[in-house]
């Protein structure tokens, strides 16, 4: 099963040679194109799963790029386009994980890590133990030294 999937993935993995997209894909308006690129960089290519659809050369990535540009030209914003993608492919397509109760630990991790680290550092500080009290002999010696 796994081998078959690997074979399937290998067949669909378009080699990096075609990682160049078609210049005709780009939207004529540079501002819109820039927005489309920025949105595309937040979407995971589902074939070559460790690239965004902007970087990937897979056919599916090319199709998704076209769709993103169509939606941008139609005036949609990032949230709407992302929602469109999520409706079809699930949260997995988002490179930036959603913020919900399940990912709360994930997004809170830097704060938690700092708190734990700081807490340990502060809480485990060794203070030098107070010196033992002076014996009577030492008290007398101290008195003599202080007088002179």
């Amino acid at each position: 099963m796994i081998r078959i999937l690997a074979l399937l993935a290998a067949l669909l993995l378009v080699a990096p040679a075609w990682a160049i997209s078609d210049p005709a894909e780009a939207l004529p308006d540079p501002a819109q194109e820039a927005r489309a690129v920025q949105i595309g960089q937040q979407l995971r290519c589902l074939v070559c799963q460790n690239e965004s659809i902007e970087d990937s050369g897979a056919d599916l990535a090319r199709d998704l790029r076209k769709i993103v540009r169509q939606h941008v030209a139609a005036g949609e914003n990032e949230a709407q386009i992302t929602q469109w993608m999520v409706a079809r492919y699930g949260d997995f397509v988002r490179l930036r994980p959603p913020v919900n109760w399940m990912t709360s630990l994930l997004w809170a991790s830097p704060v938690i890590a700092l708190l734990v680290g700081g807490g340990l550092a502060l809480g485990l500080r060794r203070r030098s133990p107070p010196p033992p009290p002076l014996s009577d002999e030492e008290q007398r010696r101290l008195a003599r030294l202080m007088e002179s």
Partner: protein
Amino acid sequence: MIAELGHFALALGIAFAFAQAFLPLWGAWRGDIRLMQVAPALALGHAMALLTSFGCLIWASVTDDFSVLNVAENSHTLKPLLYKITGAWGSHEGSILFWCLILALCGGAVALFGRNLPMGLRARVIGILALSACGFELFALLESDPFLRLWPPPANGQDMNPLLQDPGLAFHPPMLYAGYVGFAIPFAFAVAALLEGRMDAAWGRWVRPWTLAAWCCLTGGIALGSWWSYYVLGWGGFWFWDPVENASLMPWLTGTALLHCAIVVEKREALKIWTVLLAIGTFAFSLSGTFLVRSGILNSVHSFANDPARGVFILALLGIVIGGSLLLFVIRAPLLGASGVFAPVSREGALVLNNILLCAICAVVVTGTTYPLFADLLFQTKISVGPPFFNATILPLAAPLFIAMAIGPLMAWKRAALVPALLKLWWVALVALVVGIVAAFGMDALPALFMAAAAWMIGGAICDIVERIRLFRIPVSHSFSRLFGLPLQVFGTTLGHAGMGVTVAGIAGMSMAVQEVVLVHVGETTHLAGYDWKLEEMHDASGPNYNARVATITVSKDGRIVTVLAPERRAFTTQSMTTTEAKIHTNVLRDLYAVLGEERDGAAVLRLHDNTMAPLIWLGALVMALGGFCSLADRRLRVAAPARAVVLGAKRA
């Protein structure tokens, strides 16, 4: 026959490893001097056995011995000689054997260069290294044997993935593994300290060079991998926070923290328990990285051929090594003795801050990398965690680290005042401000801020030296003689911190990189980033195992030719895979980068990049590694090599 020799050498190595593990450890426990003294000899024998074994694998590859299954699966008669040699560590089995080789070499290194160590400590360190080696070599022999035979041998092999047939990638694994496995030595020192129940300042002195060496290699390995990905994969990026990339970053982060902690142990005998935990943790991350990459659990482009059965073996190995050492930690750590005391504002305090931030960053990387796995396992939902998450969470943690990096070295041990240290940096702050303002004209706000941070880091590193030689406060000639009298370790620190600054500058600059995809006919010119790019012609070419289509592009500025780029598209004959060879022209401050795509109706699709400051990213890593080497060369670290010290003294006089 050579393959059988290699196979036997591996088995012999395991025998050596077992002896090397049990005899010295028993001897150290019982105080038996003879058993302890046998450790170096066993370590050297072990190293030679593994060297022989790996040498035989390389031999089999070079002589096209396709009766060896590993060679048949990964090599080909037409493969260039360099890749036949380096391909030995490119496959899963070969890389595991390579791992074992380096582990054995670590033991040998401690045997050869650790003569200044007390006998008990050295015996324990060599013994612990051997224990890990036993596990991995058994795994190699039983589960991923590179010497399995294939009969009858095929006429030719299946060739190696063309993406791996590249000089950068040929040397990335050795450096990386030297780093990963190199951290086994500090790990062994830490466990030895736990076994002995004792850790003193001398321990810190001895552990430091080994940690430095491993850290240098790991820095170089990660940088090589990133650089390779940049110039081969043709995407113009250099870091995707891919799970395997993160797996290499985790030990680097804790390794850097360990490096800084070891200083505190040496100078002030403080933070001992934490240092031991870091040493165990760094090696644990190295091992976990190996496991995750080979198990099939991680979703990554780098994953090797995955086999869950192998995964279970490695997991068991990990359980024994990591679980065992952490259990020992729980039981024995309190014995390590009282720590030195220091005020919160002091150099130790700054190093504690360094540790907190580095370990927090590491914790975030671990969380981000494993969260999708746990979400899938526990909640049956699929999420993915990509660059946007990591960039958003790590930058706020890295920023205070960058700022503190310049201040820390200027503070005194035990108790320091913050304000005087800050005042010494007045000119650095000025420079950083100017750099930030100038940068803001060409860049967005955030990258400009990081350029200022980079200037702060580099300036701060220089400030450390300026303060030590009291520049402008004493006669210049005195300053210069002080400069030459400074121990190399100071230069090491300066280069290390400055190198980080250079890398940050490179990353900040890259955020302003521009790229364009164009359809160009032969003879046409296109414009990008103030340069004129003209497609002169296209022709066919061929290499040893591929056919290529080459485009020649002349890049000029204001009529003057800057460079000629010749990107290729290569079609490999055996593996039927096409790759792009991006061509880059670099003048250190920017990369002009061209990739060739498809051709249509006599026109070629080209993707052109102007990557500002990209080379600085890897140059910075090189400077950091150089700093590490400087510190290693410091004669104070070679304390018990009396003959050498005398020679040096004579030279100086």
